[in-house]
């Protein structure tokens, strides 16, 4: 057993008394591992992610990162939202530097890190472009870059690739695996695609019910390699996850 990076203990969320969205959820992710969360739409996946990110306080229970309770957004956690959340009025450069400006990173440090990440993600030449001028894949790389430039140890993603075509999506999933490998990131990804969940996750957590709870945690020991998509084990885990999702 590795060190626990991210832990949820008895997480419960109510939006109003009687409207309980999430009930008593406990799980943990070890350092450098990847958890994917799948479940029917509207079941509270995003709410769960918001609590992990410290954007929303749980009604009961707590979230721990490296053993410390999360009480608000933290430097340790990078987040990529559904449809990216990139600011349309900022250029690629402005979006990349946004987090560093908020955290008062010195200007020359900002420049150096922004340059590095832009090169790393192959966005050179786009520095002065606005997101609306870019393709979906480029925008998504920018969103990843904006999170990575803050050097987080945990990366949370809410359906990051849902609006991309299959080829772009698979290329970016590969990029994500590489990034995780190189930076030793701990990842939690919410998705509605079974294939994506199985390709990206060392474990796949299936959510369901009302209020939402954990229905199954499917181990996925083969994940982590680029060739996994054509591996027989990949299909076996997909089938298992599908059974768990359909059994809800």
């Amino acid at each position, binding site marked *: 057993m590795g060190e626990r990076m991210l832990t949820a203990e008895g997480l419960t969320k109510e939006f109003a008394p009687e409207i309980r969205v999430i009930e008593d959820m406990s799980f943990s992710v070890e350092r450098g591992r990847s958890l994917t969360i799948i479940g029917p739409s509207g079941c509270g996946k995003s709410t769960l992610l*918001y609590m992990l*990110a*410290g*954007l929303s306080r749980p009604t009961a229970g707590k979230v721990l990162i490296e053993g410390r309770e999360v009480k*608000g*957004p*933290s*430097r340790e*956690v*990078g*987040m990529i*939202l*559904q*449809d*990216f*959340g*990139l*600011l*349309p*009025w*900022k250029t690629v450069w402005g979006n990349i530097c*946004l*987090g560093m*400006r*908020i*955290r008062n990173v010195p200007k020359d440090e900002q420049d150096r890190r922004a340059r590095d990440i832009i090169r790393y993600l192959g966005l050179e030449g786009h520095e002065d*472009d*606005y997101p*609306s*001028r870019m393709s979906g894949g480029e925008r998504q790389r920018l969103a990843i870059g904006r999170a990575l430039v*803050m050097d987080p140890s945990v990366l949370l993603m809410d359906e990051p690739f849902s609006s991309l075509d299959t080829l772009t999506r698979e290329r970016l999933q590969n990029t994500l695996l590489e990034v995780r490998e190189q930076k030793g990131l701990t990842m939690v990804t919410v998705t509605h695609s079974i294939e994506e969940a199985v390709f990206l996750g060392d474990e796949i957590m299936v959510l369901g019910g009302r209020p939402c709870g954990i229905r199954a945690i499917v181990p996925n020991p083969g994940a982590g390699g680029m060739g996994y998509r054509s591996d027989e084990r990949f299909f076996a885990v997909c089938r298992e996850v599908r059974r768990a999702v359909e059994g809800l």
Partner: protein
Amino acid sequence: MNKQRLLGYALSLATCLLAWKVAAVLLSSPVLPGPEETLRAFAAAVGTSEFWSNFAASTFRVLSSIGLAWLLAFPLGIMIGYDRKTDRYVSPLIFLTYPIPKMVFLPVMILLFGLGDLSKILLITLVVFFQILVATKEGVSGLDRKYIDSMRSMGATEGDIIREAVIPAALPSCFTALRIITGTSISVLYFAETFAGTSGLGYMITNAWTWGNYTDIYVGILAMSILGIAIYETFTWMERRMCRWTRAAEDEPGGGWSWDKAVNYAQMIKLSHTVFALPFGLAALVILSTDHTITVEMVLWIIVAIVGARSAAMGFNRIVDAGIDSRNPRTSGRHIPRGTLSVKQAWSFTLLSAFVFVGAAAMLSPLCFVLSFPVLAVLFGYSYTKRFTSASHLVLGISIGLMPLGASVAVAGTITEATAVLSLALSTYIAGFDILYACQDIEFDRREGLRSIPSRLGVPAALAASSALHVISIASLAALYWMLPMGPAYILCIFLIGALFIVEHLLVRPSDLTRINVAFFNVNSIISVMVFVSMVMGVYLL
């Protein structure tokens, strides 16, 4: 301002001036002086200090009002748009007072703040404040939560969020509001200035009105319009600088006006073919100059009218025939069938050209203006003739033959005998070579059920008809020698033109139509220019 906007302004300005001129001609009353008269008066007024002190007073009032309104409304709009609690308390108050017409507070303002600048500034501020406020609030309310959430996840404070997300989100709608209120604020300014005080452009207009000085009213109107345009354009410029992202999505290459597009338009109407017709128009002027005075202005407007009418007719023809053109291999490369110009663009071009023609006619004389409409009907009507009569070539000839007649009406107020003969020469010349052109399309026309002399009578008979028409043409030109005080050089020129006609007909044989295009085009353009040259030589080289 970029080239496209500049061109847009120039075109709309031209349109406005033409419409104004047309209206002035129609009304022919001192209440509506023509644009040239007004511009002269405006130029004179610009030299006086009185004008500038009025202009400065109005500019100061309107700018301070907009500035004050923005300073109050923008921050408040941001607050009620972003903060739900403030919204809940402030919004009902705003929407209760928003529909009240603020103009009615003018007497109250004057009683409270006097007859000076302050009461006027506060009234305009009161009117435009609400529009900026509502637009800013809408802009902020439209801000998607995901932007705010993603910033929070980076640890952003409320200040960061307002600075980096809320204000930028509000800017585009705020600028839209500012541009809209430019017009409103100047209207209110006019109202306030007519009501009270002794300075400002509004006062200037009312004063001119009182004294029955109609031209000065328009000088004031012009000055107010210029003030409005200047403020409007300043806001547009600021928006372009401060909201670059809003243009990023639409700034694709190929859009808007470009040299290539202008070339496309010129090609669509075969602008270069103007050489066939324009010399006849100028020839008419040479003939008319023998017993009428012709001013430079007349020549200018006649040329504008000819180019306008021709462009309108050609554009209309390309639109009407787009379907036919696309099926004919000879014409399928034309701009509309190929898609380099859309039908919509062709339409706007055609209408604009027609408008230019009518406007130019109005500049020439009221009679020309009235007659310009039936002329347009003939020009447009021609495009349909080949669908039901093989005499369509003659209709084309007559349409173009109207040109010397138009010049005659413009200069002499009537159709002179000599221009009528010149018109006959032109009509038969055009009809004759249109028949030659139609020989190329004989099979296509028969298949499509289109009428033409070649498709009805066959190529040999068509060539004979064309020759006959060209004989009439040269005979008409020759007849002018006896009708006008012409020198002997004219006869020499007529022989040359006759020889060119013969060359043209020798180029084309029933068995070989391939030479219709290049050589044909060249010979024809020489003939046209020769007609003009021969008139000049005949009339001036006595």
